């Protein structure tokens, strides 16, 4: 299905945010790899650092307050964190593309959708060395990108301002932006949360095609474990700035190991209609003074003495699963 050579390798990434009260130590040594042509899911509680992770890859973290305090991010063997400022835009609008979480904030309210899409297409063409494009050509390219996401009447949408679209429509504008030909790695931050499931299904199939035909790799951030199960080859589970488990998607659902992953899977509302569970007890830690040892220990039903003092590394469990929990190694 996919080759094994890594396209993106995040190693021990640590990021903190300086705020009035002190340093928020958010990412705490994140390790995550995406191979060529692979669809990878990233799941975790609100505020666990998913968006911060992809913003680090894209080098768009606002700094200050953000500070990368450790780690490396290799894209095709090159450390992105060592790129010079002027080299950054070239990765961001060329090979690596992102769909950001909040479509309202990533679209500019004062320009029409058409104008914004055309600017991006122009830029992307320039990267391929094409400077001269007619207005008409740009317009038709923008319209066809919108069509690819199943957007009704692209002509109207191109002339509209973001505020005139429904939530799901805005999201599709951002998705179409990311479907450009040159994209090698797509970082998609909750791209389908505002869409009904039939459109979601159409878009996921479209993303599948991208992977099949162009060998694009995808990192898919979502709260929908159902989508993860359908779309991805492999999953990373994140808790409070750490990767706590990774496995092939099938294994993760049939054999979740980390106490957090288990809690998470139990919380998903089911079609079988057993009601809505109470959720995992407690809440995500304060990043000013995160717990020592395993950051999950204050909420963990299985915690042991060692969990309070020592940070669990990722232990191998079988060939395709790793888990950061002392229940599985010392």
């Amino acid at each position: 299905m996919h080759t094994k050579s890594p396209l993106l390798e995040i190693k021990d990434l640590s990021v903190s945010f300086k705020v009035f009260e002190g340093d928020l130590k958010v990412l705490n040594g994140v390790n995550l790899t995406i191979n060529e042509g692979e669809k990878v899911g990233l799941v975790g509680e609100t505020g666990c650092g998913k968006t911060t992770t992809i913003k680090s890859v894209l080098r768009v973290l606002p700094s200050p307050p953000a500070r990368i305090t450790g780690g490396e991010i290799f894209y095709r063997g090159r450390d992105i964190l060592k790129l010079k400022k002027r080299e950054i835009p070239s990765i961001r609008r060329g090979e690596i593309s992102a769909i950001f979480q909040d479509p309202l904030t990533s679209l500019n309210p004062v320009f029409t959708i058409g104008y914004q899409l055309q600017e991006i297409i122009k830029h992307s063409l320039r990267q391929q060395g094409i400077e001269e494009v007619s207005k008409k050509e740009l317009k038709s390219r923008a319209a066809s990108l919108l069509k690819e996401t199943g957007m009704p009447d692209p002509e109207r949408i191109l002339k509209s301002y973001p505020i005139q679209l429904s939530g799901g429509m805005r999201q599709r504008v951002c998705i179409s932006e990311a479907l450009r030909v040159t994209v090698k790695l797509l970082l998609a931050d909750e791209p389908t949360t505002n869409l009904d499931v039939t459109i979601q299904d159409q878009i996921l199939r479209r993303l599948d095609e991208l992977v099949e035909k162009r060998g694009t790799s995808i990192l898919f951030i979502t709260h929908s474990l159902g989508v993860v199960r359908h779309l991805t080859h492999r999953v990373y589970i994140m808790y409070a700035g750490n990767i706590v488990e990774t496995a092939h998607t099938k294994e993760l659902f049939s054999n979740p190991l980390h106490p957090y992953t288990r809690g998470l899977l139990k919380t998903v509302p089911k079609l079988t209609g057993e009601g809505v569970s109470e959720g995992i007890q407690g809440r995500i830690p304060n990043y000013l003074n995160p717990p020592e040892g395993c950051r999950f220990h204050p909420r963990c039903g299985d915690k042991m003495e060692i969990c309070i003092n020592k940070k669990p590394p990722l232990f191998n469990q079988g060939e395709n699963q790793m888990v950061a929990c002392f229940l599985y190694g010392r």
Partner: protein
Amino acid sequence: MTEEIMRVEGLIKHFFTKQGTVRAVDKVSFSIFKGETLGLVGESGSGKTTVAHTLIGIYEPTGGKAYFKDQSLEKDYSGRSKNLKKEIRIVFQDPGSSLNPRWSIKQILELPLKVHGTPVNRDQMKRITELLNMVELPPEEYLYKYPTTIGGGEKQMVAIARALATDPSFIALDEPTSALDVSIQAKIINLLIRLQKKFDLTYLFITHDLSLMRNMANRVAIMYLGKISEVAPTVDFFQKPLHPYTKMLLSSIPVISDDEEDLKPKKVISRGEIPSPVNIPPGCSFHLRCPEKMAVCSKIDPEMVEIEEGHTVRCHLYADG
């Protein structure tokens, strides 16, 4: 649970734009009963938010009628009585942008109290504390915080507290948890269910998450392109879906176990152009995507028919009832 609290009859909301008339809500009719949760699901852009916004008075309807306990909802917010404004409240789709970032949580909760006349300052403070306790945010910790410094789940709790401030009997919940993870979602949903029982609240609950809908709503209404295509009690809706769009919807739910997979109708591949609300096709608006369409479907718009008590559908396959 049979007292009708809201009745919507042929409600229309059109937007007049340079690109043409957007028929966002096009003759929608439904009732909501006291103490129930009516789920509203459907296509992105089908008009769910517009329905909610029209009911709470952000928009004035273009046509049709809506009543809340016999009071007409024909005017927008500026023309409504104080009592009506107090009774009908909303929690918005996006917790981030619906709270003013420059106001502390105390200020955010003060505003509806001022507008609706909780008199003395001391009473106000008492009420704010009470509201925060209702949504399980410790007041000492949250009163003076700003929206930017709290998480998405907490923001939505504040938005719920703001909606509760006027002691309403009806709340429209527009995708209140779609931006949150399942664990925080579970907390908010359980909180909403507890509040509903305690204050006998009626909810209009909009979501794309059908698994959540299954566990939250008493009845479900499906919208497609500005119209309602099916209404049913939740259990019937999942067990005996009638409308082809409903079947497509149910078969596309991404679930997490094989048990659930078995409950879904046979996979209906979703394809085809979604028509535009500016240019609604003649006949049934779903015919362009419908796997079961017949000759009549592209010509005549079907009428709503009742198949079983409380289960209605708008589709030519069921024209004879």
